[in-house]
């Protein structure tokens, strides 16, 4: 995909659609832009002299963040009741908040946001945490409002996703610090103790007894913190297992550490026998290291989900009851009760479930129902909290809030399906328990046998068995591979949120897609313009754009992003007929755009016969004036780039591909046909989707579900492994096992590659650990392995396992990234990483 700067958007790197003429002057040259959103962001960046961003960025910005929120909507965040949960107020009007920002892709983004905010008068401090994608902002409320800060962030093309509550430091942060501290203590002790052990290894008995004792005491001193602090989690976990009368994986670890340490202490104090302090410290360090990496990768995935759960708006516009001229007040959405009347401005999110009492509009409920088209709303119609009001203001009587709302109901459905979830990991755990139990029994039996043969050597042989049997390699085999795979996937923009995800993905027999937003772009795009009169294509498009320019309807958005920015014609007296179309006056004549029937009223002739050629899966809009029809414009939900290749790739892997969707049957069948998918189910509600997946599972299928809408959430939880698209709906992420952050379906193939490789590596690791144990344990039990060799063998087998796992991090992936060059940062090349 080597694209030159001339044909790809300078800001986002997407190809510039033909016929669009957006450009922005950056660093002395006019740069092409793909759409009005990118152009607006780029001009904001240029205006504030922040074009250094384009030189320094190493990742392209996320798409679809360009729909920037309305200034009025942001103004709501200035209300004290809304600010209360997340703003910390210090003396003198100084306020602090931690903003979660979506769209930060690389270091240059952090730089851009910090620069921009620091130049605002009244902002006292900004610190962007790149890893957590969080901005800590401090401002003087008398000089700047929070809404102005949010506005500045939105103008740069980022979206403020929510706010971290101010209640103290998060538990996750504390836990992370403790883990890191434990790891460091073990690491430091390991290095130092090895230095003390080295003379004994090298001198081979030539050391004087005094010096050896000195080294041993030094080693003991430094190993005590490792035992007491670093290894504490193993002991607590082993104690918990013991208390619950089961054999956990931490038990041999804890037992091995405890016995080896006790024996070493005894050897040090009595001056007889071998010491294992270096082995203990290294053992603990390696185990903690693997666990730390794994926990961090998972915490990061979980955190990026949490921020997506906040869904309903923070603020509502409530009508003051009994006020003679209608007056509204802004209240926090949580304060709404059933019976309240709220006004919902066009473009804003419905704060609660309710019934329309006044106004006519259309709502985008695609998040909740999967229906990509706008649904007309008139007085008496029900609206769902979380949907978006598109056209004109609505007055709504609130019927349900909080736990009774539809959104909350969907979440509950999701929870229940999640509770039923099968866990393959539990089986693996049971097998591991048996192994551990057998191991401990074997060690004790060895000690018992040696008690009869040579009582003096009994304890040492038992320790040698426990040390050499290397629970380390066994305990590391899976987590090390999972950590490496999680890291590799994270670099690909795929987050793993549950431990079993990779394992199940590798076993999946069926891949089920939800059409809306997974295989398609999830939004309407202008497909074609069919001129029916004397006007040319460009002229028709300009006229249509002029009529639609005030509308928030999905069709209007699709039109406006395809049309030139400065329209050559202007429409006056624009009037909106919800559900039908728009009428306006252009150059003295009336022009209509909308449904064929609506346009034919003005054209005074039957609907255009050309409509016969428009397939059912496509939405057609007719443009007409009093003299006749002008043009037909067709809109559709385009397939994503790479969707077809992904389907072929999955089928080549022998996985059955299915398509479930809430969209109309014709649309779904059309998409399925275009992609070569055999099984497709249209007009499917959450229950039908759930039933479909259950049927597959009843036949023994392992289902991997790829979804994005809230209506998918229950079915995502029902599938054995679920993948959510990051650009999709917030709640779906909460239940998904994996989240695809990048908007690139090709990465899904890579996820399957990594899953298979991970399983192979885990099998190799387990095979290695098993083979090693089969050879080493009898040797140790026979007393043939010196304690020194036991420690070295343990270390070697652990390192072999870790090194094998690390190969997963080197999985080559074709990634496009921009070259940093002053002349044309828009150039991209492909590189095999």
């Amino acid at each position, binding site marked *: 995909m080597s694209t030159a700067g001339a044909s790809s958007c300078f800001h986002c790197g997407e190809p510039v659609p033909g016929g669009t003429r957006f450009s922005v002057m950056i660093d002395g040259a006019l740069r092409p832009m793909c759409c009005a959103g990118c152009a607006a962001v780029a001009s904001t960046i240029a205006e504030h*002299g*922040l*074009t*250094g961003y384009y*030189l*320094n960025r190493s990742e392209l910005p996320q798409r679809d963040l360009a729909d920037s929120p309305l200034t009025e909507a942001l103004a709501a965040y200035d209300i004290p009741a809304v600010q209360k949960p997340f703003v910390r107020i210090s003396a003198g009007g100084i306020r602090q908040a931690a903003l979660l920002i979506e769209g930060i892709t*690389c*270091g*240059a983004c*952090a*730089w851009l946001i910090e*620069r921009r905010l620091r130049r605002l008068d009244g902002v006292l401090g900004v610190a*962007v*945490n*790149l*890893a*957590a994608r969080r901005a800590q902002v401090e401002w003087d409320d008398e000089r700047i409002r929070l809404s102005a800060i949010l506005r500045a962030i939105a103008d740069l093309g980022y979206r403020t996703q929510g706010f971290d509550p101010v209640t103290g430091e998060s538990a996750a*942060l504390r836990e992370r*610090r403790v883990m*890191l*501290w434990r790891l*460091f*203590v073990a690491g*430091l*002790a390991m290095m*130092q103790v090895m*230095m*003390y052990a080295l003379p004994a290894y090298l001198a081979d008995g030539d050391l*004087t007894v005094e*010096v050896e004792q*000195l*080294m041993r005491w*030094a080693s003991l*001193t*430094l190993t005590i*913190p490792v035992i007491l602090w670093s290894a504490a989690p193993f002991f607590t976990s082993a104690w918990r297992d013991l208390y619950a009368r089961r054999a956990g994986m931490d038990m041999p670890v804890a037992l091995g550490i405890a016995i080896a340490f006790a024996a070493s202490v005894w050897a040090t104090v009595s001056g007889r026998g071998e010491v294992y302090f270096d082995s203990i410290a290294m053992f603990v360090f390696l185990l903690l290291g693997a666990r730390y990496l794994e926990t961090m990768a998972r915490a990061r995935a979980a955190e990026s989900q949490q921020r997506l759960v906040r869904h309903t708006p923070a603020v509502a516009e409530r009508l003051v009851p009994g006020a003679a001229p209608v007056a509204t007040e802004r209240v926090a959405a949580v304060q709404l009760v059933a019976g309240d009347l709220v006004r919902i401005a066009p473009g804003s999110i419905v704060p609660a479930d309710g019934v329309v009492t006044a106004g006519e509009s259309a709502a985008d409920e695609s998040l909740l129902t999967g229906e990509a088209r706008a649904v007309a709303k008139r007085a008496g119609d029900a609206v769902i909290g979380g949907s978006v009001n598109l056209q004109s203001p609505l007055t709504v009587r609130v019927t349900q809030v909080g736990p009774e709302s539809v959104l909350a109901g969907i979440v509950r459905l999701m929870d229940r399906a999640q509770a039923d979830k099968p866990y393959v990991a539990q089986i693996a755990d049971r097998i591991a328990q048996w192994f551990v139990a057998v191991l401990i029994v074997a060690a004790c039996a060895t000690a018992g046998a040696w008690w009869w043969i040579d009582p003096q050597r009994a304890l040492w042989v038992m320790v040698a068995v426990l040390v050499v049997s290397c629970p380390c390699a066994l305990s590391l085999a899976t987590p090390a591979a999972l950590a490496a795979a999680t890291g590799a996937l994270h670099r690909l923009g795929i987050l793993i949120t549950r431990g079993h995800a990779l394992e199940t993905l590798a076993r999946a027999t069926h891949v089920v897609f939800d059409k809306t937003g997974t295989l398609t772009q999830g939004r309407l795009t202008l497909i074609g313009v069919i001129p029916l009169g004397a006007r040319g294509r460009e002229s028709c498009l300009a006229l249509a754009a002029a009529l639609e320019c005030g509308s928030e309807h999905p069709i209007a958005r699709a039109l406006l992003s395809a049309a030139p920015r400065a329209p050559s014609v202007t429409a006056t007296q624009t009037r909106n007929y919800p559900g039908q179309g728009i009428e306006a006056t252009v150059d003295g004549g009336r022009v209509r755009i909308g449904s064929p029937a609506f346009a034919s009223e003005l054209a005074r002739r039957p609907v255009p016969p050309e409509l016969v050629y428009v397939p059912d899966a496509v939405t057609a809009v007719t443009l007409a004036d009093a003299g006749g029809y002008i043009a037909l414009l067709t809109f559709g939900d385009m397939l994503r780039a790479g969707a077809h290749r992904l389907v072929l790739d999955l089928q080549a892997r022998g996985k059955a591909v299915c398509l479930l969707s809430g969209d109309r049957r014709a649309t779904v069948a059309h998409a399925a046909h275009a992609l070569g998918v055999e099984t497709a189910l249209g007009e499917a509600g959450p229950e039908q989707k759930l039933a479909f997946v259950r049927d597959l599972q009843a036949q023994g299928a392992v289902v991997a579900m790829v979804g994005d809408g809230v209506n998918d959430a229950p079915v995502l939880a029902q599938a054995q492994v679920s993948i959510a698209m990051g650009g999709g709906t917030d709640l779906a992420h909460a239940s998904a096992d994996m989240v695809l952050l990048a908007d690139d379906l090709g990465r899904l193939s890579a996820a399957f590659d990594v899953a298979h490789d991970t399983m192979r590596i885990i099998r190799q690791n387990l095979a290695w650990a098993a083979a090693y144990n089969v050879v080493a344990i009898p040797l140790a039990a026979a007393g043939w392995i010196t304690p020194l060799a036991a420690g070295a063998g343990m270390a070697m087998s652990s390192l072999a396992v870790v090194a094998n796992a690390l190969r997963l991090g080197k999985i080559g992936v074709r990634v496009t990234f921009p070259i940093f060059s002053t002349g044309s940062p828009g150039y991209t090349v492909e590189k095999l990483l």
Partner: protein
Amino acid sequence: MDVLYLLIPLSIVLAFAAGAVFWWALHGGQFEDLEGPAHRILTDEDHL
């Protein structure tokens, strides 16, 4: 070899000192963002 009786205890003290320094760095928040500062040092100047 007598010097070992001074150097070994000294190395233990140093190890504990290193631990204390790390504790200070950890609780000073130096490990919170391991990616950002690496980029920030490259982009500190204004490109005007």
